[in-house]
């Protein structure tokens, strides 16, 4: 008997994956989520919608993004061939724009006038503000007050694009609080507003919808490898925050049993934690199944079910929950989860820059760290593809402070 397709299951119309996923939202959001799901499953089959999206992908964002053979890094590691999928080449510098364009087009179909979004480091907010400007929609971005203060450049860019950026002072003043505030905005303005959720988390249909919009990444890789005369890769590696870039990379290959899939979470300062705060964001190391922010998945939480604060050098991975499809794929053994520590990430970042001339975003550098661990142990005829989900220039204020602290601080002072 033929094995049932995982690809089909992961895009199922109910949005449940084993015990994970679902739509655990207040009653007022229920009709809104149903409307969105209905519209998405129709649009997905509509040739006109697909053509519009393809046009924006190709002629606006700059798809297809390159698949680069990392000859120098491969040689240095002395094992498997290493390929880099350069999602950092997208407009706004990361894969986030893939689902932003898709969702903004859906919002237009639903006759919404306004986009709202949460953002941590500002990358998803920036991509949302960009597509709002392009498609003529109003835009409000919620950002935890702490992030708002430490990501000043991105606040500036979003405002320049015409978006209103609101710092959220509730709770820990981080990404989670921004999500909660965006949900509250949606509860208050359900008729004219679309909440452009930025990852494969949240209530149904967001995980399914964003996986679909991100699946272009893996689909391009299959074609690009074929054109090179290479077969399917032996191993795919992606960093995992909410999980959007990982699902984008993995989805295409879910039904290829010989392709191994590895997700890399933020190991932060190490897998230790107190009652209230974890020094990492490795949900698959110490997290448990729970329900929060509208979905069931793995969360870092205390005994009572209160979500914990997390830590990572990369804001994009600094989150206590993870996409429900990844929780399911890990549970059935299709995806293996591991983690990289902050310091491993920084050295991976430098190594990639100096061997291949590419700055990876700190999120994506988690994947690089795992590539470095795996490649030398693999055979030369084998191959790895990793998702370089974003480019590293956005992290200047973090990397420069860590890698060239003295001179960078002197420079900052001189500019005052």
């Amino acid at each position, binding site marked *: 008997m033929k094995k049932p397709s995982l690809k089909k299951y992961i895009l199922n119309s109910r949005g449940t994956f084993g015990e994970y996923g679902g739509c655990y939202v*207040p009653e007022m959001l229920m*009709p809104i989520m149903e409307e969105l799901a209905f519209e998405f499953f129709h649009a997905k089959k509509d040739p006109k919608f697909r053509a519009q999206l393809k046009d924006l992908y190709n002629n606006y964002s700059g798809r297809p993004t390159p698949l680069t053979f990392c000859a120098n890094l491969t040689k240095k590691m002395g094992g498997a061939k290493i390929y880099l999928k350069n999602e950092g080449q997208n407009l706004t510098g990361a894969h986030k724009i893939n689902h932003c364009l898709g969702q903004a087009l859906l919002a237009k179909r639903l006759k919404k006038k306004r986009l709202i979004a949460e953002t941590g480091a500002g990358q998803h907010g920036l991509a949302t503000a960009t597509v709002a400007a392009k498609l003529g929609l109003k835009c409000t971005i919620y950002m935890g007050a702490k992030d708002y203060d430490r990501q000043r450049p991105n606040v500036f860019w979003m405002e320049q694009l015409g978006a209103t950026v609101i710092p959220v002072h509730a709770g820990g003043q981080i990404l989670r609080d921004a999500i909660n505030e965006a949900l509250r905005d949606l*509860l208050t303005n359900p008729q004219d507003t679309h909440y452009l959720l930025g990852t494969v988390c949240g209530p149904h249909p967001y995980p399914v919808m964003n996986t679909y919009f991100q699946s272009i990444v893996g689909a391009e890789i299959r074609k690009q490898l074929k054109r090179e005369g290479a077969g399917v890769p032996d191993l795919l590696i992606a960093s995992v925050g909410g999980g959007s870039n990982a699902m984008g990379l993995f989805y295409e290959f879910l039904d290829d049993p010989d392709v191994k899939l590895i997700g890399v979470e933020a190991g932060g300062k190490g897998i230790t934690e107190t009652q209230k705060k974890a020094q990492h964001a490795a949900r698959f190391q110490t997290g448990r199944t729970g*329900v929060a922010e509208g979905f069931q998945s793995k969360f870092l939480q205390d005994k*009572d*079910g209160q979500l914990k604060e997390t830590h990572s050098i990369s804001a994009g991975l600094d989150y206590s929950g993870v996409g429900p499809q990844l929780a399911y794929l890990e549970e059935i053994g299709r995806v293996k989860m591991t983690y990289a520590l902050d310091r491993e990430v920084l050295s991976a970042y430098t190594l990639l820059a100096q061997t291949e001339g590419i700055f990876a975003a700190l999120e994506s550098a988690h994947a690089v760290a795992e590539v470095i661990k795996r490649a030398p142990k693999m055979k030369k005829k084998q191959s790895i593809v990793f998702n370089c989900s974003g480019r590293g220039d956005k992290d200047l204020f973090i990397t420069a402070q860590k890698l060239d602290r003295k001179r960078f601080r002197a420079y900052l002072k001189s500019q005052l």
Partner: protein
Amino acid sequence: MKLMTHIVAGYPTLGESEQIARTLLDSGSGFLEIQIPFSDPIADGPVIAAANQIALQNGTRPRDAFILLRKLHEYAPDKKLLIMTYFNILKQYGVEKFCRDAARSNCYGLIVPDAPIDEEAHTHYLASCKKYGLHAIQIISPITPETRLKKIAQAASGFVYCVARFGVTGAQKKLPQELGGYLQRVRKSIKVALAVGFGISKRAHIAALQNKADIAVIGSQIIREYQKSGLSGVAKIITG
């Protein structure tokens, strides 16, 4: 018109939340929601969300709420005491065990805004409430469609909580005008009592609900009043 009021267990401290509760019950509140604080209260507005945060900083745990419930039941045995919280609190405690302990503490019913009837196969929330004789209070909003209203009607028990307007919990100056029509529409499908909440902050609002609903819910206004003028302010919201 009956009245339901709301406290967050552990806000501003566990002792003070008990005092606020006693004051509310003394002043004529027939129903009382005792909220177990949660780190991510998505259905709550800024006032109650901030109170959740402080209650958690005070170390409030689910069992503190059960103890509070027992004390309040002893104090006012004829009042209906409910627990309001989010589903993850039940899930981590054990949904059945939570319902059992709530029932043992003389709880009347549970209000869990992120446990929709659609997820019953995963949550077993309704079944557990039924097993222990708790009312699983259903929530309805102005944009709940007719077909959904009928589904919810089948699960309705005790009373149904009608959200008066779009948005999250929080006091408003005026009640929305279309409220009357909305409640009439709900009344056609729902056979149990109707409670109306979200935005009710003064006696004039309660008067406006006369003959339209059975229970008026006052939530965040109690926290605001307590912050402003203490227990006497809290009593005044009810007694006028």
